[in-house]
């Protein structure tokens, strides 16, 4: 019997190892698997490479993971968000490596990693500093840069509902990087607001087919990053 359900975030992320490459879903707060990230902070894995659109905000979630010096490198399109304090400090002190990738190139590199496409050409960034040192090719009179697929050891994503097979649906713009990150990791771990019975999700509306998900864990009432940031909370909680 297939049962990908884990009881707690702690159990779901237990085997993440030092030096792992981890994709983390979310566009800002929407879709960010904050409980999985907090469990990862508790677990202690370090020397991580993180692939994520942003670099976190305040002192919770992804920002807290960075603040605890667990991340040696981040591959990211926009590490400069409102209330982003941790990343700028680390970056200016040379304590974290940044690979800056245009957002669409980031998305496509991740999808290609999941789709068995090792490299592709894109017009994005041609003629800019982000294309420097990369192969440029002329196709039908236009110039393109060669970009390589991204893959990960683990993906941590947040979805809305899931089942024991690993089927997922998302909620509004929380979908963002989730579906493609599920495709691109050896082990995808999804936190969902609700686990439903197999068969409850209409086969026509499933966004992430179960084959792309290895673990599902229910977090019924996930924390809201903007609330925690406005309260200046820090993880781990210190009361």
């Amino acid at each position, binding site marked *: 019997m297939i049962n990908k359900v884990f009881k707690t975030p702690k159990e779901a992320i237990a085997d993440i190892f030092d030096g792992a490459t981890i994709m983390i879903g979310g*566009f800002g707060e929407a879709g960010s698997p904050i409980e999985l990230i907090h469990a990862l902070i508790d677990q202690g894995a370090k020397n991580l490479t993180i692939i994520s659109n942003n670099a976190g905000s305040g002192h919770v979630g992804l920002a807290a993971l960075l603040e605890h010096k667990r991340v040696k490198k981040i591959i990211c399109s*926009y*590490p400069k968000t*409102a209330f982003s304090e941790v990343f700028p400090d680390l970056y200016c002190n040379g304590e974290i490596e*940044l690979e800056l990738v245009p957002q669409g190139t980031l*998305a*496509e590199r991740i999808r290609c990693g999941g789709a068995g496409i090792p490299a592709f050409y894109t017009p994005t960034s041609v003629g800019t500093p982000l294309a420097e040192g990369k192969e440029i090719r002329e196709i039908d009179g236009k110039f393109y840069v060669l970009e390589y697929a991204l893959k990960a050891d683990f993906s941590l994503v947040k979805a809305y509902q899931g089942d024991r097979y690993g089927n997922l649906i998302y909620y509004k*713009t929380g979908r963002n990087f989730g579906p493609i990150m599920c495709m691109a990791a050896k082990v995808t771990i999804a936190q969902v607001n609700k686990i439903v019975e197999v068969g409850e999700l209409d086969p026509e509306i499933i966004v992430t087919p179960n084959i792309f998900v290895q673990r599902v864990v229910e977090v019924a009432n996930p924390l809201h990053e903007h609330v925690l940031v406005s309260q200046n909370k820090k993880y781990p909680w210190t009361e």
Partner: protein
Amino acid sequence: MDRINIGWSKEEMATLVANDIPDGSYVNLGIGIPELIANYVPQGREVIIHTENGLLGVGPAPAPGTEDFDLINAGKKPITAIKGACFFHHADSFAMIRGGHLDFTILGAYQVSQNGDLANWSTGSPNDIPAVGGAMDLVQGVKNVFVIMSHTTKDGTPKIVKKCTYPLTGVAVVSRIYTDLAIIDVTSQGLKVIKLAPGIDKNTLQNKTEADLIF
């Protein structure tokens, strides 16, 4: 750019842009002033607004207290969705952008050069945190790239230049510039002024512009 004392206000600039977007257009709005444009779409036009984080059909800002932080725009501000909207993931969203399906993107800028080069993501300062987001994809893929910005920096330095000194977002990508002082088309002949703000004359505009203007 909090206050503009001469020329058009931000709201007037947004109105000018909105009037130039035909019925039925698909439009991506950048962060900041471009977001205002959604408020000035003329009555009777349906313009479908795309936000690159996965929604086609951005609606008006939510009433205070009704915000849903899982329904946000590229600037990470709460939004609403119109009837007929749809959600999708990032690779599909940038397929729309890169694949040439959007009609307009309206972006802010640090500098625009006379051949339409755009610099809007980095000042190149070593202390600046580099962050590019979707700008480089938008300028490559969207059919018409419009810039909306103040004509000069606060200290009066021209932002419309012969050659950008800041790192580029794209080469020869901008087709029209809306500033507080004028509307300028990027043409193969050069920068052509198609409208002056009330009270602005040609000499004043040229003096605030590093690149040569055609009137």
